[in-house]
């Protein structure tokens, strides 16, 4: 594996912070959960996103209650609410909004849109959360095994992880749905599929962290006192892996929501009649003019969800590693002109003058960190496989 990372940290937006290992955390960076929470609370965008997501989760959990309240369910057809003469356009304003159907009804079938959106949220969140748990579990296990095991095991596992990271997940996922029996429960299938294909990044980070931590005194002490690799992994390493793994999970969650929505959009994800946002968007294409609400509602919901997760993930990342944010503030106009800087720069100005030259040492592994600044005479090693960390779905 190459040891030089090429993307500048801020570029991918998800380069990972070094875990502050044990007590070695600097007073201002990394640090305790309380410090991280405090930093998170100071960011309004993070708070709003967290609020939106909490509301969404609450709504998804309470979906059966809410639909019971309005007396609707996501599966009943209401032929009387759509105008069959006009091809099934909902009767009434804004896509058939009424006292019974708060957000209107689905064109063509007349099913309650609110119920379908809320149940769609359940599926979306369930699949994304489940897939993230699977990805993280496999990733941590493989990463630990690669970091602690023999060189042969390490290179084998790393190669498999590399291949997985390189392959476009959507394509492989689509292809694999072809060989699964039709009666296999789709949400579970999606969880397993996304989970099994998406652990490469986590494994890479955990491996890198493990290699770093392995050399530290407290781990050496545990090994010297005769504890086996299993116990060392569980008792000494796992606690220190918390920060990077949480950060990465925050990146994985919205990505998984998007993968689920994409698969359902393409018709190979959640099968009807189970409601799903992606599926609704796919069928919405014929209703652009006749019923714009049917396009805008699921699209808006998906947009807000993914955006909130992204903003929150970004905030968690900076809260776990404030140095990362300060690094990119170097050389900005505010700082140079010596004006009282904005809140962010102000807090960091103490470090800006003496730019933190020593980034936390021992950062190995391609998954992390910025390219070290090099003098022109200093050759970099072979770039090795260069990959964006977040895969985009196109």
């Amino acid at each position, binding site marked *: 594996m190459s040891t030089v990372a090429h993307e500048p940290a801020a570029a991918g937006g998800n380069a990972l912070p070094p875990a502050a290992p044990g007590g070695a955390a600097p007073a201002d960076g990394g640090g305790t959960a309380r410090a991280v929470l405090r930093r998170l609370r100071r960011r309004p965008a993070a708070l709003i996103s967290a609020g939106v997501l909490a509301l969404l989760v609450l709504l998804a959990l309470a979906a059966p209650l809410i639909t019971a309240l309005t007396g609707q369910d996501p599966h009943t057809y209401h032929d009387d609410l759509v105008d069959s003469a006009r091809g099934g356009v909902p009767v009434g304003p804004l896509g058939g909004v009424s006292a019974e159907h708060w957000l209107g009804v689905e064109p063509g079938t007349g099913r309650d849109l609110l119920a379908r959106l809320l149940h769609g949220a359940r599926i979306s969140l369930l699949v994304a959360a489940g897939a993230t748990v699977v990805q993280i579990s496999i990733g941590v296990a493989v990463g630990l095994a690669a970091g602690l095991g023999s060189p042969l095991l390490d290179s084998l596992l790393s190669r498999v992880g590399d291949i997985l990271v390189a392959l476009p997940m959507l394509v492989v996922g689509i292809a694999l749905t072809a*060989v699964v029996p039709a009666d296999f429960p789709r949400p579970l299938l999606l969880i397993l599929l996304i989970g099994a294909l998406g652990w490469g990044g986590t494994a890479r980070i955990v491996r890198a962290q493990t290699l770093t931590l392995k050399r530290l005194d407290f781990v050496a002490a545990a090994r010297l006192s005769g504890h086996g690799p299993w116990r060392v992994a569980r008792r000494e390493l796992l606690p220190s892996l918390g920060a990077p793994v949480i950060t990465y999970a925050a990146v994985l969650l919205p*990505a998984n929501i998007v993968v689920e929505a994409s698969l359902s959009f393409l018709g190979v994800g959640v099968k009807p009649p189970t409601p799903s946002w992606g599926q609704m968007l796919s069928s919405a294409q014929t209703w652009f003019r006749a019923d714009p609400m049917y*396009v805008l509602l699921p*699209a808006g919901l998906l*947009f807000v969800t993914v955006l909130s997760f992204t903003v929150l993930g970004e905030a968690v990342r900076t809260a776990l590693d404030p140095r990362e944010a300060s690094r990119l503030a170097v050389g900005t106009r505010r700082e140079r002109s010596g004006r009282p800087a*904005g809140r962010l720069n102000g807090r960091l100005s103490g470090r800006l003058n003496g730019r933190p030259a020593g980034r936390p040492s021992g950062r190995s592994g391609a998954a992390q960190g910025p390219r070290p600044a090099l003098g022109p005479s200093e050759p970099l090693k072979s770039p090795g*496989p260069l990959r964006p960390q977040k895969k985009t779905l196109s």
Partner: protein
Amino acid sequence: MTLFLLRRLGGALLVLLTLSVLVYGLFYLAPGDPARLACGERCSPQQIAQVRRTLGLNESVVTQYLHFLQGIVAGRDYSTGTSVRHCAAPCLGLSYQSDQEVTRLILERLPATASLALGALVIWLVIGVGVGLLSALRRGGFTERALTVLTLAATGMPVFILGLLLLMAVCAYLRWLPFPSYVPFTENPEQWAWNLLLPWLTLGLFESAKYARLTRGATLETLAEDHVRTFRAYGVGERAIVTRHALRGAVPPVIALSALDVGTMFGGAVLTESLFGIPGLGKTLIDGVKVIDLPVVVGVVLVIGTAVVLANLLADVLYAVADRRVVLS
């Protein structure tokens, strides 16, 4: 350099072999009888047996796989009982649905995919790098903040949200363009461009967010380096520093990532193709999956795998070419 290339090509070959074993194993050993799938719903047992013989499904798994490999390297023959059908060199099998050679099916779909990918490449290079550069120039100001929010909002969004909204606005409401339907370049270049305009915009803008962040990050990274401080001390203007010197730091990663992305897209920008009805590789994959046309699915996955692996190699080489501090070894 040559040694590096040779070694990496060897590695790529190994990866592809592994991939082919995995894919072949997964797809042909999965529950469900390939012969039945190939033959269709209303096939008599005799017909199925005949198909089984034609496809060589009676042989052992290893032999079947070796035949598959042989087909890719040297071509293979299918005997239909009375006649022999030859499938030329990179033979990925015969489609269950149309009985055509999968290689030809894929080659037919390649121009559409390539048109989409290359047009989108132009857009993200112009807009993505432009936005990234602008926000690096205006750092600390309102412009940068607005652009940062915008790119953050766009990264990670599913591409079809943008595509749907564009379709809705441009085609359904404003009626500036008709709903796109793909026209091959060789048929009518003008119609080709007009019909691909929205797909290009969708995919290009979607990717732009990533490139804007990459450019901004790399540029700021370079700005913090010592030689830039020296330029400042010499009195070089801010604009010149950013556009002439700091941007240089962004060139290698942008080129390398572009190579990767184009490679991946050559394997099919599945969502965009499906949304705009572009008959490319991604669409082939989806159609193949829906009717469980295994040879097509396996073929497309292998082609995409090859594209990705080659793109990785190309990205590394381009990176080294663009950044002379990198030594390939």
